[in-house]
């Protein structure tokens, strides 16, 4: 009987964290210049749920932080980047605060 809470609670916590991801990180192809980044940032800031956007040409990474309690679906993100002219390779939802991510990227870390 003690087995169930031990398994269920972490699973529920994981599911909750995933549902309220602080930051969405996307791996993007074709990201080679500041103008590319500028266009992508402009597209992503149109979402009412967007709190901040970080783009790293070095890591081919586009990250969006979300406002509390809000979300942008993977499909919407893929559509936005496709409409901006780029190809999304992967989308990952994390709990990494965007300020921490920005600092990590500034130090040249992936």
């Amino acid at each position: 009987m003690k087995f169930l809470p031990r398994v269920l609670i972490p699973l529920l916590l994981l599911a909750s964290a995933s549902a309220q991801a602080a930051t969405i990180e996307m791996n993007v192809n074709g990201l080679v210049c500041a103008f590319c980044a500028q266009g992508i940032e402009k597209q992503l800031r149109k979402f009412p749920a967007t709190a901040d956007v970080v783009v790293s040409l070095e890591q081919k990474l586009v990250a969006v932080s979300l406002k509390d309690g809000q979300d942008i679906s993977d499909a919407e993100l893929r559509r936005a980047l496709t409409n901006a002219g780029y190809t999304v390779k992967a989308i990952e939802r994390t709990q990494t605060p965007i300020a921490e991510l920005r600092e990590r990227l500034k130090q040249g870390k992936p």
Partner: protein
Amino acid sequence: MLRWSVGLAGACALAGSITVMAKPIAFAGGYTVMAEYGAGTMEELQLFYAPRYDFSFGGGHLELDSDETTKTRSINYARLNYLLHRWNLDNAQANVFVWGGVGSATGNTFTGSVLAENAGAQADYETRRIYASFKTDWQGSSAFSHRIDTLQLGLAPYRHEYGGIATWFLVQARQYTGGIHRGTESALLLRLFKGGVWVEAGVTNGGKLQAMAMVNF
């Protein structure tokens, strides 16, 4: 106005605030303003708006001043630009653009204003360290036909990051048809860009200034 804009571009370049080749479509929902001073032979000012990442429209003004003869052309035009194909690669991007439009032209070898047509294409390949592009731009009417072909090869000394200054060294080769310039005009250029501002300047094999400025917003 055109000379003032080009002069401003040159001043920015000389002040060190200066960009890979100008694209006729910057990004969806964005405006592009571009001014070029081509060694006293051509001067061009363009304004485009891109409702989508693969399409833009706008207009421009082109002045041609032959360094072979006293021939001059002054052309105002409206233009549509279309991104025919883009390759988004792991560490590179390649594009093929085409464009076309109509306008009116005056010149000193014919009377009045004539209907002018324009068409062109550009192919480019870009990584964060290497750049290559070829552009062909034609302006024609019942009174003249001029084509400007431009090849650019660039090398960046470092990989720039978004928010920082990008630096490129370029070699440009350009040919004009229709009695504007004889032979190939080559130029060495320094290109700098940051955010939405791009400026390049350099000198041609004839010792003349070649400069360009572009703003995307």
